[in-house]
C-alpha cells in the first residue's frame, strides 16, 4: 500500500498530465478552426452570430437586387455583362415576379430541357437580354439567385410545376 505522500504525488502527476492534454487539445482545435472546416452547432447561437449570418445573406440579396435592376456599377464590379439591349431583368420581372424560383428544377420549355433556376437565369441573360452568361458558381449568379429567392420567399415550394 503506497504511503500517503506517494498517493498525493501520483494524483498531482495525473492532474498535470490531464491539464497538458486539455491545453494541447484546445490549441489544436484553435489552430485547425477556420482552415479546413467550420465547426457548427457545438454551442448555442448568440444573437450576434445570427445577425452576422443574416447580414451575409442580405448583402447578397442587395447585390443581386442591383444586378437584377441593371445597375452598371455593380455589373462592372462583379465582372458581369447581363444585357446589351438596355433591358434589365426587372423590366420583365418587377419584384422578381414570374421568375418562379420555387418551381425549379423543372422541364423548361424555352430551353427544351430539365433545368435549374441557374439555367433559366443564364437563358434570360443570353436570349432576351443578349448579355454574356454567367459561370454557374460565380458570385454574380449566387447574388442573383439570392435576390430572386428572397423576393419570392413567401411562395410555396412547388418543384416541377409548369
Amino acid at each position, binding site marked *: 500500500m503506497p504511503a500517503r505522500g506517494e498517493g498525493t504525488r501520483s494524483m498531482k502527476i495525473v492532474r498535470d498530465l490531464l491539464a497538458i492534454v486539455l491545453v494541447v487539445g484546445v490549441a489544436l482545435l484553435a489552430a485547425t478552426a477556420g482552415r479546413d472546416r467550420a465547426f457548427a452547432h457545438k454551442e448555442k447561437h448568440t444573437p450576434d452570430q445570427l445577425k452576422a449570418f443574416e447580414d451575409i445573406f442580405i448583402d447578397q440579396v442587395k447585390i443581386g*437586387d442591383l444586378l437584377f435592376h441593371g445597375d452598371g456599377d455593380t455589373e462592372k464590379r462583379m465582372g458581369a455583362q447581363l444585357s446589351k*439591349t438596355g433591358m434589365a431583368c426587372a423590366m*420583365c420581372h418587377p419584384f422578381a415576379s414570374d421568375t418562379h424560383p420555387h418551381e425549379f428544377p423543372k422541364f423548361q420549355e424555352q430551353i427544351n430541357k430539365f433545368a435549374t433556376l441557374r439555367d433559366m437565369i443564364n437563358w434570360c441573360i443570353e*436570349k432576351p437580354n443578349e448579355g454574356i452568361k454567367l459561370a454557374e458558381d460565380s458570385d454574380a449568379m449566387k447574388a442573383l439567385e439570392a435576390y430572386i429567392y428572397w423576393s419570392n420567399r413567401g411562395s410555396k415550394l412547388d418543384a416541377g410545376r*409548369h
Partner: protein
Amino acid sequence: MARTLSAPEAKPDRSMAITRRTFLHKSLLTAGITAGATTYGWLPLINTVDLAFGQTAFKFAWLSDTHLYPKDVNTRFVEKTVRAVKEIQAMNPPADFLIFGGDLAQLADPVELDLGADILKEVKIRKVFIPGEHDWYLDMGQKWERLFGKSPWTFDHKGVRFIGLDTVSRGPDYWTAKKMTPKERMGHMATLDGSVAGAWAGVGRDQIQWLSTTLGNWPKDRPVVIFTHNPLYEYYPPWNFWVRDWREVHEALKSFKNVTNIHGHVHQVLYNEIGNIRSIGMLATSWPWPYAPEGVPALTKCHLRVDPGDHYDGVGWSQLTMGAAGKIETEYVMWRKKEHLIGEAAVDSGCGDNVNQILSPRLADREWPFYGAYK
C-alpha cells in the same frame, strides 16, 4: 373591388359593351359580333377602338409604351414601333385618329423623344397625345410638351366626348432633399418596382376640377371616353397600376352612365368595371409586364402566358371601334397570338401563377448610397 365599391346593379351602359370577337390578324374589323350583357371577354390583338353612338361608326387606334432607347442602344423597340405605325397608317378604312398613350421614350432622353416624334410622323391621321412617366422626369416634361403639347385636353367627335388626362406629372418630390441629378430622378421613376418614387401616379385636384367643369355641359347619358396613362382605379399600387386619387375621380364621374377609361402603363390585357366606369388596359409594343401578384380584376380574362424568347409576343397595339349600334369594341393586335389570346386554364394563363406568388418590395434602392438602376 367592383362588388365592394359599386352600387347594386351599377354597370357601364351596355350600349358600349365590349364584345367578344375573333382576332383577325390583318386587323380588319369585319368579324361577327356577339354583344350582350354577359360578354365581358374580348380577344385583343391591336389596340384599336370602334366607337359609335347613334351616329356614324368610327374607329381610332391606340399606341403606347414604345419605350424607345436611342438607336445605338436598342433597335428592337424601334422596329416594333415602326411596325405598329405602318399598320395603323394602313388601316382601311382609316382610323379617325390615333391616341398615343404615353411612354414614348424610356428615359425621357431628347434623342429618344425626337426619335419617337420622327417615327410617328408616318401616321398621317389626326394624332393626340398624353404623357407617360418615362417621358417626363428628366426635364419635368419640357421636351414632351414642346413636341406634343399640354394635357389635359378634350374634343367631341361623332357624339362622343373624348378627354386626355395627365396622370404622371404630379409625383411627390423625392429628388430635391437627396440632391438627385435629373438622370437619377428619371432612373428611379423608370424603375417600375422601385421604392423611391412612391405613389407618383395621380390626377390631382386641379385636373379633377377641370374634368368636372369640362363635363358640366355634357348630357349624362352620352358617352365619355377618358384616355390616361395609368388605370383610373386601384389595381396594384406598388407598381403604380392605379392613380392614388381614383376615388375622387370616380366621384366626379359618377353621374355619367357611359364612361370608358382607356389606359396604358400595364402592358397587358386588362378589363375592369367599377360602378358606371369601365377601364380597358392596352398593350405595349415594347415588352409585356407580368400580371401583378394580386389585384387582377375579376372581370379580366388574362392573356396567354408570353414567350420571353419572342420579342413580338405579348405586345402590339389596339384598335377600338364605336359601331353604329352603339357598341365600343376593343381589338388587341398582339402580333404573335393568332388563334388564341386568352389563357383559360391556369397552366396557360398569364395570371395563373399568381395564386402561389408572394413577392417582396425591393431593399437595395432604399439605402444610400445604393442608388439602384440606370445611373
